[in-house]
C-alpha cells in the first residue's frame, strides 16, 4: 500500500484503496476478494486441456452400432459329418528360430520352403523354413514393417510400413523393387490377390487402396470412417474384406469398387481377417479377445471363439477349412474346431504378443511369429 500524502484526494489517487478503507486491517481479505485474472494463454491452455479430454473420451467410447451376438445365432449349419477327424490332430512344437528383433509381420511359403519376417527396424528377412538359415535381408523401409505378404509363386514380396509406403521386392532376382505411394498414415494391413495381380493395403488414414502389382497403378480407394487395421481378399479374388479400429467390417466388390455389405459384431479393433478356403466364411480377430466366424451368404455370425485372455491379433484357417488358429496378446496360439467352435488345443512358448499365425499347404505345420523376435513352428505328430 503506497501512501505519500494525508490529503484525502491525493491518498485516494496514490493508494490502491480509497481513504475510508485504508485503516481497515483487511488488506489480506480485500486482496483475497479480487479474483486473479487468467491470461488468454492460460484460458487457451485450460480449453485445450478440456478439448483433449473430451476428444479422448469420445475416441475411447465403444461403437454403438455393434450388434450383440446371441448364442442362438451360432448355428451349426456348417457342421460336417467328418468333423471329428480334425480333433485327432495335436500340434507339438518342432522348431523355434530367432529373428532379427521385434516382428509384427510374417508370411510362410510352403512350396519354396521359405518364410519372411518384417521387422521393427524396417528390414525384411527371408529364411529357410527347414533350417532356419537367413537367405536374404533387405533394408527397405525407414520405419517399422507392420505387414508382409508373399505372392503365390513366392517370387514377389510386398511389405507395408509405418513410413506410409508399400514396397514390392522381387526375391528371385533380388532387385530392390519399387514403392507404392499414396497413403498418408501408417499402413497397418496388406494382402495380395490369389492371381498375384493386385495388392491391397489398409491404412490408418481410413482408406484401403487397391494397386496393380505390375504397373503400380492405384485402381480403387475404399473409405472407412476410422483407421483400417485389417484386409483380406476372398479365394476367388472378387471380394475384399476390410476391418477398422472401431470393429466395423466392410465387404467390397473388387471389380466394381462398390460396397456390398457391412458386418457389425465387434466393438473394438479388428486386428486380422481371413477367408475360409472355400470362400463361404470370414474369420475376424479382435481386440475384444474374441474371433468371430461370419457366414458370407447370410452375412451373420455363425460362431464365436472365446477363450483368449487378451486381444486376438492373428487368425488363420487350415487348408481343409476345419481348423482355425488364433494368436493373441496373451502369448498363446489356440486351435479351434470350425464346426463345433470348440477349443481344441493351446500352444504356448512365445514370450510376448503373437502377431502372426499361418498353416502350411498341408495343414500339418503351423507357424507363429511374435514380437519377442521368435518364429515358432508346430506340427502334428
Amino acid at each position, binding site marked *: 500500500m503506497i501512501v505519500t500524502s494525508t490529503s484525502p484526494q491525493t491518498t485516494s489517487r496514490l493508494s490502491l484503496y480509497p481513504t475510508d478503507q485504508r485503516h481497515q486491517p483487511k488488506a489480506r481479505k480485500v486482496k483475497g476478494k479480487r479474483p486473479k485474472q487468467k*491470461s488468454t*494463454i*492460460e484460458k*487457451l*491452455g485450460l480449453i*485445450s*486441456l478440456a478439448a*483433449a479430454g473430451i*476428444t*479422448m473420451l469420445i*475416441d475411447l467410447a465403444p461403437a454403438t452400432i455393434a450388434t450383440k451376438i446371441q448364442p442362438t445365432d451360432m448355428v451349426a449349419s456348417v457342421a460336417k459329418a467328418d468333423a471329428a477327424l480334425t480333433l485327432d490332430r495335436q500340434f507339438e512344437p518342432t522348431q523355434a528360430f530367432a529373428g532379427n*528383433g*521385434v516382428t*509384427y509381420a510374417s508370411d510362410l511359403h510352403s512350396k519354396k520352403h521359405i518364410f519372411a519376417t518384417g521387422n*521393427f527396424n524396417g528390414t525384411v528377412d527371408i529364411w529357410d523354413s527347414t533350417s532356419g538359415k537367413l537367405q536374404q535381408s533387405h533394408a527397405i*523401409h*525407414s*520405419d*517399422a514393417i*507392420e505387414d508382409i505378404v508373399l505372392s503365390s509363386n513366392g517370387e514377389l514380396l510386398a511389405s507395408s510400413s*509405418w*513410413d*506410409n509406403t508399400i514396397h514390392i521386392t522381387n526375391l528371385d532376382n533380388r532387385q530392390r523393387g*519399387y*514403392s*507404392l*505411394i*499414396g497413403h*498418408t*498414415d*501408417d499402413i*497397418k494391413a496388406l494382402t495380395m490377390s490369389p492371381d498375384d495381380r493386385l495388392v491391397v493395403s489398409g491404412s*490408418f*488414414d481410413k482408406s484401403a487402396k487397391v*494397386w496393380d502389382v505390375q*504397373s*503400380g*497403378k*492405384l485402381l480403387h480407394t475404399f473409405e472407412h470412417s476410422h*483407421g483400417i487395421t485389417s484386409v483380406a481378399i476372398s479365394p476367388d479374388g472378387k471380394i475384399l474384406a476390410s476391418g477398422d*479400429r472401431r470393429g466395423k467390417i466392410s465387404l467390397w466388390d473388387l471389380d466394381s469398387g462398390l460396397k456390398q455389405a457391412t458386418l457389425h459384431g465387434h466393438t473394438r479393433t479388428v486386428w486380422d481377417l481371413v477367408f475360409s478356403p472355400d470362400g463361404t466364411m470370414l474369420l475376424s480377430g479382435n481386440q475384444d479377445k474374441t474371433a468371430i466366424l461370419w457366414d458370407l451368404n447370410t452375412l451373420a455370425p455363425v460362431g464365436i471363439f472365446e477363450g483368449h485372455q487378451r486381444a486376438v491379433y492373428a487368425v488363420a484357417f487350415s487348408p481343409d477349412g476345419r481348423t482355425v488358429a488364433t494368436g493373441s*496378446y496373451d502369448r498363446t496360439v489356440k486351435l479351434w474346431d470350425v464346426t463345433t467352435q470348440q477349443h481344441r488345443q493351446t500352444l504356448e512358448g512365445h514370450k*510376448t*504378443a503373437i502377431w502372426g499365425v499361418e498353416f502350411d499347404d498341408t495343414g500339418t505345420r503351423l507357424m507363429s511369429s511374435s*514380437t519377442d523376435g521368435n518364429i515358432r513352428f508346430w506340427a502334428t505328430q
Partner: protein
Amino acid sequence: MNALSEALPLDFAPLGNNLGFLALAAYIATLVPTTVRIVLPQFKSHNAVRWLLKQRRAIGILAFVLAVGHTYFVVRKRNFDFFDLHTYQASAEGASTLIIFTLLSITSNDWSIKRLKKNWKRLHTLTYMAMFLLTWHVINKMAGQWTMITPIAATSILTITVLFCIRQLTEFRKHRSNS
C-alpha cells in the same frame, strides 16, 4: 496416379503429428525469452519476448497438454505395449521427453516453487535436456517419411538448440572473464 513415379514430395501430416508439432512450437516458445536475453540482447526488450516471458508457465503447460495429445494418437496406432520393454526402447526419447514435461508441468506452480526452493530451479533445468531429446526425436522418428510440417519442426528445434549452445558458451566466457 502412377504411384511408381509420381511420389508425393511431402505428405500431409496426420492429427497426431500435428499435435506433436504444436507441442514443439509451444515448448520452443518457452525457451525463446531466456535464450534471446543472452544471445540477442538487442531484442530482449521487444514486446513479443516480454510477452513470452510473462506467459512462459502457461505456454509450458500448454506444451505438455499438446504432447499428451500427440502421445495418445501415436500410441493408439503404433501397437504400443505398455508391458513390453521393446516398445519403450523404440520410443525412448519420446517417452523420456514426456516424463520431463510431466515433471515440469506438475511443479509449475507457486506452491512447488516455495516447497522445492533451490531444487525447483535444478529440476527445471531438465527443460534443456528435453531440447536435445526432442531434436533426436524429430530427426529419428521422421527420417525417411517427412511430412509438410517436418522441415519447419526440424529447423526450429535445431535453431533453438544451436542458440542455446551459443548462450552457454557466452555465459561460460563471461563467467571465466569475471573470475
